[in-house]
C-alpha cells in the first residue's frame, strides 16, 4: 500500500516518459494562465496596496465583451480593439468612481470595494450579454487549431496548436510587461508608487494616472487570459473560478513579486496536474485539481509565511 502510494507513481513516470511529458505540458498551459491572472493581482497590489478581488470577473467581462461585440457583427480584430477601449474606460471609471474617493482608507475597505466592483460587473455582464455560455471566436482571431504529434523515445506526445499559441503569446506578454516595468520611466513610476506614495508624489508622479494605467494593464491581461481560457473551455461566468486559482499562486509567490507570480503559477499548474494523474485518480477518486493548489499553498505557508518570494516580514520590537 505504502509502496503503491509513495514509489509506484514515480516508477510510472520513469517507465512512460512520453506520458509524463504530456501531463507536464498540460499542466504548464494551465500554469501559464494562472500566472497571467496572478500577475494582474500583483501589479495592482504593488502600485496601490489593493487586493483586487475583481481580477477574475474582469477576465469574464473582457471575454464576454469581445464575443458579444462580434455577435453584433463587428469584425474580430476590430472587436479586440473595441474591447481594449472598453477595458480602458473601465479603468478610468474605477479610478474616478471607486479608488479616488477612497484614497487613504484602510486596505480592507478598498478590498471590499473591489468585491463591489465584482458584483457590479457580473450584473452588468449578464444584463448586456446574457448569462448563457458562449463560444470564443478563436477561428476568427486566427488562433490555430489542430495538433502536432511528437514521438519522443518511441512514445506519443500531442501538442495542441491552441496550447502552443497560448504559451507563446503569454510569454511575449509577460516579457513585454517586464521590459516596460524595468526599462521605461512609466514602468519605474509604477514600481516607485508601490514602494512609497509620498516619495512618488515628490518626484512628480500622479497617483491617478498610474492607477488608471495599472488597471488598464490588468484589463489587457484579463482580455488575453479570457481569450485563451475561453478558447479552451468556452466563455461563461464559470470562468471567474479560475481567478480563485490565482489565490494559492499568490500565497506561494507572495503578493509583491512578479517573478513569484510567474514561477508560482507554473508550479501550481504542473504540480496539480501531476498530482491528479499519478495520485488523485488512482487513490483519491480524482477531481483533486479543485483543492490541491490550496493545500499546497497552505503547507508552504506553514514554513514560509511570506510565500516563496515575498518580502520577509521583520517586526521591530
Amino acid at each position, binding site marked *: 500500500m505504502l509502496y503503491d502510494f509513495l514509489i509506484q507513481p514515480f516508477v510510472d513516470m520513469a517507465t512512460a516518459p512520453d506520458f509524463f511529458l504530456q501531463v507536464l505540458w498540460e499542466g504548464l498551459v494551465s500554469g501559464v494562465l494562472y500566472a497571467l491572472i496572478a500577475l494582474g493581482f500583483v501589479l495592482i497590489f504593488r502600485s496601490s496596496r489593493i487586493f483586487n478581488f475583481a481580477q477574475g470577473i474582469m477576465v469574464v467581462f473582457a471575454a464576454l465583451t469581445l464575443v458579444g461585440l462580434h455577435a453584433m457583427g463587428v469584425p474580430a480584430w476590430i472587436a479586440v480593439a473595441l474591447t481594449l477601449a472598453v477595458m480602458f474606460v473601465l479603468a478610468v471609471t474605477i479610478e474616478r468612481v471607486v479608488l479616488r474617493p477612497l484614497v487613504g482608507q484602510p486596505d480592507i475597505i478598498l478590498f471590499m470595494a473591489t468585491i463591489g466592483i465584482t458584483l457590479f460587473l457580473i450584473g452588468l455582464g449578464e444584463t448586456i450579454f446574457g448569462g448563457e455560455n458562449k463560444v470564443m471566436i478563436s477561428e476568427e482571431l486566427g488562433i490555430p487549431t489542430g495538433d502536432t504529434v511528437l514521438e519522443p523515445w518511441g512514445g506519443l506526445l500531442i501538442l495542441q496548436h491552441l496550447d502552443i499559441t497560448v504559451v507563446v503569446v503569454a510569454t511575449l506578454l509577460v516579457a*513585454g510587461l517586464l*521590459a*516596460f516595468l524595468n*526599462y*521605461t*520611466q*512609466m*514602468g*519605474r*513610476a509604477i*514600481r*516607485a508608487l*508601490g*514602494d*512609497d506614495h*509620498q*516619495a*512618488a*508624489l*515628490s*518626484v*512628480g*508622479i*500622479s*497617483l491617478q494616472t498610474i492607477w488608471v*494605467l495599472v488597471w488598464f494593464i490588468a484589463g489587457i491581461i484579463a482580455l488575453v487570459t479570457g481569450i485563451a481560457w475561453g478558447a479552451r473551455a468556452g466563455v461563461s461566468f464559470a470562468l471567474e473560478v479560475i481567478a480563485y486559482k490565482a489565490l494559492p499562486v499568490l500565497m506561494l509567490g507572495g503578493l*509583491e513579486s512578479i517573478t513569484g507570480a510567474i514561477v508560482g503559477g507554473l508550479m501550481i499548474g504542473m504540480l496539480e496536474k501531476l498530482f491528479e494523474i499519478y495520485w488523485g485518480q488512482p487513490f483519491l477518486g480524482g477531481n483533486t485539481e479543485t483543492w490541491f493548489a490550496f493545500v499546497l499553498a497552505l503547507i508552504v505557508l506553514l514554513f514560509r509565511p511570506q510565500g516563496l518570494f515575498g*518580502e520577509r516580514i521583520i517586526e521591530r520590537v
Partner: protein
Amino acid sequence: MLDSSEGYTTADGRQIGGVLMEMKNITLRFGGVVAINDISFDIREGEIRAIIGPNGAGKSSMLNVISGFYTPSEGEVFYKGSKRPQMKPFEVARMGVARTFQNIALFEGMTVLDNVMTGRLTHMHSGVFSQALWFGRARDEEMDNREKVERVIDFLEIQNIRKTPVGRLPYGLKKRVELARALAAEPSLLLLDEPMAGMNVEEKEDMSRFILDVNDEFGTTIALIEHDMGVVMDLSDRVVVMDYGKKIGDGTPDEVRGNQDVIDAYLGVSHD
C-alpha cells in the same frame, strides 16, 4: 529689507538674484492647533536659505506648504513672480520644486540607479504607448535621462553603489541617494528637510560639501531646514528663525545670531 527685484552680494562674494519664491502671510491650522502663524519671507535665486527653530516650531510644516503637501489655511505663495494656485504635490514637483524628506522616502525595492531615474519623471514628455513600444521620443528621452542621471551620480560620488537596491544601504548613503534623486530633476528650487539629521560628523561634513557644491556648480537655489546650528550658520546665506509657529528672526547668519529673541528661543526663556 531687500527690494524684491534686485539681488545682493553675499559675504563670500556670490551674486544672488531676485525673488524666486515668496511666502506671504502664511497661516496653517490643524483643527485648533496653529502650526504656522502669519509668516512671510522670500527665497532668492541662487541663494541657500535656511529655516531653523526648536522642535515643534513649524519648520517642517513650512516646507510641506512650499512643496504642496500641505495647503495653507491662509496666505499666498508666489513662484517665479506669479501667484501659485492650490496644487497637488506632484504638480508642484513638475513646476521644478524637488525635495528630500526628514525620514528618507526612497523606493527601497529599487536600485540606486532606478531611484535616481525617477527624479527625471518631471521631464517626461513621451506618452505611454511610445514607451510601451520603446520607439522614437521615448527612446531618445531614456538615453538623455540616463546621461543626466549618470552625471548626478558621479557628482555625488555614488557610482560604486549604482546597482545596489536602496534597502541595503546604510543611512548616510540613503540620504545621499535621496539628494541625487532630487538633483536629477534639475530643480529650480531644492528643498532639504533636515539633510544632516542622524548623521555622524564625517557624514555631516560630506553632506555640507555636497550642498555647497550643488549650489556653486549648478546655481541651484536651496531652502533647507536644519537643527544643527553650527552647520546652518556655515552653509546658508540667509536664515529664517521660527518658534511656536511664528517668525522671530530673518537675516544673515550674523544678524540672526545677535537677535535677542533667537537667543531666548534656543536657550529656553519662559514664554509668558
